[in-house]
């Protein structure tokens, strides 16, 4: 459980985050989305006990991050953005060291278990300095999982991984998120869409939106847009389709392409298809052109859409 209330952090005169309030429940994967410099890492560093906030409060796993920092740190698994590691240690020794700092019983066995979870068991005796970026990322993840934490805070967990590993790590996070609280930051929107139950979008230190990925998409796209293509020119169809109840704003585009909008929650596509066929046109394709999360993101964070 993570509960954040009015969190603010200043670096000198610069305000990194301002009055953040959000919550992540147990068994929930909360995505933290935002452009670079939005304040994601700052927020995660505060929640992991690395540094105190300037103002506001937060509880992680039921403990206050300022007055009960040690209790919080015992219960949080944290993967920092830059994945700092000791290059002159072997993977096993490093994880053993971190496990010892957490006073884990039978630390060696636990290290083997997490190495297996992240698929690094063969590199256990290799030096961290010789690992690829993706492997380092997985060592960092293994470190965060060592003590079976109630809360996982993962700063860009899939960055630098190859596509197959990305899939593995996402599955692992989804699995872990079933009984734990996971807060993960990402700038990959499809990732948030795939693994997060809820998404908090943050820009310039402020929350601009908070909802499930599906709702965000639905809410922001408003009316649904559909694009279709017929053989030949589509000009004559405009009036016929516009006459169908629920259809709004029909536009004919070159090469038989036609776009229309319809009110959300009302699927007019079957009726549109019948109308086209009845008018003796060959319907070649029809697809919804909902606003992608990318576009939502750009719109929310105030950047121009193309």
């Amino acid at each position, binding site marked *: 459980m993570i509960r954040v209330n009015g969190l603010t952090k200043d670096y000198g005169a610069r305000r990194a985050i301002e009055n953040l309030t959000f919550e992540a429940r147990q068994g929930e994967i909360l995505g933290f989305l935002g452009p670079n410099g939005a304040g994601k890492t700052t927020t995660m560093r505060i929640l992991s006990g690395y540094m*105190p906030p300037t103002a506001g409060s937060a509880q992680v796993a039921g403990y206050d991050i300022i007055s009960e920092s*040690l209790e919080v740190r015992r219960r949080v698994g944290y993967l920092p953005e830059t994945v*700092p590691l000791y290059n*002159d240690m072997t993977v096993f020794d490093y994880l053993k060291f971190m496990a010892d700092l957490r006073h884990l019983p039978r630390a060696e066995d636990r290290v083997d278990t997490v190495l297996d979870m992240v698929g690094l068991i063969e590199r256990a005796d290799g030096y961290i300095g010789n690992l690829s970026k993706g492997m380092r990322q997985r060592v960092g993840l293994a470190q965060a999982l060592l003590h079976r934490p109630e809360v996982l805070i993962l700063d860009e967990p899939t960055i630098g991984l190859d596509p197959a590993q990305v899939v593995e790590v996402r599955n692992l996070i989804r699995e872990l998120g079933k009984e734990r609280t996971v807060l993960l930051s990402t700038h990959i929107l499809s990732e948030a869409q795939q693994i997060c139950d809820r998404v908090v979008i943050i820009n310039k230190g402020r929350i601009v939106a908070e909802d499930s990925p599906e709702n965000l998409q639905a809410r922001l796209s408003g009316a649904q847009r559909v694009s279709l293509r017929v053989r030949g020119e589509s000009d004559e169809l405009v009036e016929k389709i516009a006459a169908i109840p629920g259809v709004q704003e029909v536009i004919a585009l070159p090469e038989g392409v036609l776009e229309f909008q319809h009110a959300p929650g009302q699927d007019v596509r079957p009726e549109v298809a019948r109308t086209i066929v009845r008018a003796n046109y060959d319907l070649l394709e029809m697809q919804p052109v909902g606003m992608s999360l990318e576009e939502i993101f750009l719109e929310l964070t105030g950047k121009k859409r193309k």
Partner: protein
Amino acid sequence: MRNMWIIAQREYKHYFVSPIAYVIMFTILVIVGIIFALNIWQASQPIVMYSPYVPDVSIITGPMLFMFIFSIPALTMRLLADEHRTGTLELLLTAPLRDWELVAGKWLGSFLFVLTLIVLSLLYPLILHLLIEPGLDLGVLLTNYLGMILISAALLAIGVGISAMFSNQIAAFFTTLVVLVVLWFLIGAPADILPRLGDFFRYIDLRDRFYNSMAMGVLNLSDIVYPLTLLVLGLFLGTLTIEVRRWQ
């Protein structure tokens, strides 16, 4: 305490994978060995002065302390500065250990290394003991080594405290070096110049304390209290710095 020990163990092992520790250990033992041999040689010459020259333990502990002033900065410079530079400090500061446990653990690691060196150097007093009649005064040997251990412990703590302030090892090295040179060679100077406060400067003059009491077999309570105060001060400084850095 357990956390402190875990940090200390890692640091202690780390010294033995880096060449700098071996270089320091080898250099100190060889130079002390040379000075030791020269003293023995001098003592074995026909008597040229009024009284015969009988070397004592300070021919070993004196040069060792002198070399500690220059090598302790190299032993401590990395300890926290490098954690800061590589970002691994973030791992330690988000692990469930108190800031003072981290700083004290770093100090303990370096202290154990210096202690290893000090134990190895016991070879020289052993040789000396066998060479002179009627052997070494064990009390003097004890106060000499106790002084050396206390002083090196204090200087290492200062080095660790300074290392916490930098993310650059070289900067930490030179700052520590300057502080140690002042503490060892210069701080006693005002005692003879200033009309007042002379006693104060004599009190904080580490070198004077060592040579005029512990090296002679005398042990005052303040000889123990003063280095321990420096030790606590150094570790406190390091902990405070880490704490302040968290807020930045």
